[in-house]
C-alpha cells in the first residue's frame, strides 16, 4: 500500500531505482495517491517559501564575529525561556477560546448509507463506489477537543463535492461541504473557504497516521 511514508520517501528521493519504479507505477494507478503526493509537495513548497521569505542571515555577522573571537559568558536566564512562557500564556488564551467552538451542521447536508459505510470502513486514499459516483476519504484527523473527523471527496458525472464529516455520539455528521461546479470555481452555502474555516475553528487538525486510522476503523471509531 502506498502510505504517506512511502510517498514521502518518493518525494525525498530516498527510494532505490526498483522501489521508485514500482512506486511510480502504483501512483499512476491511484488518483488518491496522486492527490496526497501533490498535497505533500504543495505543503513542502509553502513551508520553504515561508522560511525563504525571511532574512535568515540577519544578525549572522555579529554571531560569526563572536564565534571567531571566543564567546563571552552570558547570564544563566535564557531569553527564549522567558519569551516562550509569555507566548504560552497568550496561546493558552487563544486555545481556550477555540475550545468553545465546534463544527456547525449545515442545512440540507446528507450522508447516504454507502457514504456512511465508506466513512466507517474505508482507509484514506482508497476510492469506493457510492450511489451515483465514487467517494474517497483523503485523510482522518482529530481536533483539539478530541473529536475525530474525516475529509472526503465525492465525484459524480455532474459534480464534485469536498466535505468534512465528524464522528458525533456514535454517528457521522457532515460538518461542512462545498460543491465544485468547475475546476477552479466553487460555490457553497456557507462563508468563503468553509472547509479551511472549519478546521481553523477546531483549533487546527492533528492528522492521524495510517496505523492510528486503522486502529480507529477496527474499533468502529471509538475513542482510542
Amino acid at each position, binding site marked *: 500500500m502506498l502510505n*504517506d*511514508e512511502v510517498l514521502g*520517501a518518493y518525494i*525525498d528521493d*530516498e527510494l532505490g531505482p526498483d522501489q521508485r519504479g514500482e512506486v511510480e507505477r502504483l501512483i499512476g494507478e491511484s488518483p488518491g495517491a496522486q*492527490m496526497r503526493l*501533490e*498535497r*505533500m509537495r*504543495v*505543503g513542502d513548497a*509553502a*513551508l*520553504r*517559501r*515561508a*522560511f525563504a*521569505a*525571511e*532574512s535568515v*542571515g*540577519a*544578525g*549572522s555577522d555579529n*554571531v*560569526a564575529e*563572536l*564565534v*571567531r573571537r571566543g*564567546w563571552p559568558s*552570558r547570564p544563566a536566564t*535564557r*531569553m*527564549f525561556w522567558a*519569551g*516562550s*512562557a*509569555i*507566548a*504560552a500564556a497568550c*496561546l*493558552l488564551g487563544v*486555545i481556550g477560546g477555540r475550545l468553545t467552538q465546534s463544527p456547525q451542521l449545515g442545512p440540507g447536508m446528507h450522508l447516504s448509507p454507502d457514504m456512511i459505510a465508506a466513512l466507517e470502513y474505508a482507509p484514506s486514499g482508497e476510492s469506493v463506489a457510492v450511489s451515483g459516483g465514487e467517494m474517497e476519504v483523503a*485523510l482522518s*484527523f482529530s481536533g483539539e477537543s478530541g473529536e475525530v473527523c474525516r*475529509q*472526503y471527496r465525492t465525484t459524480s458525472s455532474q459534480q464534485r463535492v*469536498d466535505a468534512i464529516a465528524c464522528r458525533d455520539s456514535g454517528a457521522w455528521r457532515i460538518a461542512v461541504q*462545498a460543491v465544485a461546479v468547475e475546476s477552479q*470555481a*466553487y460555490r457553497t452555502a456557507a462563508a*468563503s*473557504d468553509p*472547509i*479551511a474555516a472549519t*478546521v481553523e475553528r477546531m483549533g*487546527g*487538525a492533528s*492528522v492521524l*497516521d495510517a496505523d492510528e486510522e486503522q486502529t480507529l476503523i477496527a474499533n468502529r471509531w471509538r475513542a482510542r
Partner: protein
Amino acid sequence: MADRVSEFREELVGLLPRLRKFARALAGSRDGAEDLLQSAIERALTRSTAYDETRRLDSWMFKIMQNLWIDSRRAIAQAPIQDMETPDVQGEDGREIVESREELRLVREAFAQLPDEQRAVMALVVLDGASYAEAAAALDIPIGTVMSRLARARASVATRVRGPALLAPLRKHN
C-alpha cells in the same frame, strides 16, 4: 592546537545560516531563535573538546540545539511555541500578496503547532535538505522514526495550504 580551534570555529561560522534556520524552525520567533542559536554555540564552544571529529559537526550542532530546546520546553511545562512572525511577501498584485501572506501565516501556524520532534525532523529534511540517514544521525533516532514523524508532520502542514489538496480546495468566484 590553536589551528584546530580556529578551524573548528570557522566550520561553525560556515554552519550559521543552517543552524539559524533550524533554530527558527524550533523556536518560532526571531528573538527566541537567535537566543537558542547563541546558547547552542556557547555550549559547543565550551564543550568543543568533547566533539568527536569522526562525527559531522552539523549533526552534532543540530543535536545540541534540539536538546537545549527540549530542556527549555520542559522548564516551561510543555507550553506551545510562539507563533511565527509572517514576513513580507513581494509581489505586484495586491490580492496575491494578501493571499500569499495568509498562506504563509497558515503554514507557519501549522508548522508551529507540530510536536517538537516532528518539527525537528521536518526542518532538517524539508528545509535543510538532509537525507533520512543524516536526520536520523542528527536527532539520534532510527530512520523509520524519521519517516513516520515526517509523514505526520507533512500531513498536518498540508491541511493548511491551498492548491489541489482537499483541505483547501475552495476558491472565491472572481
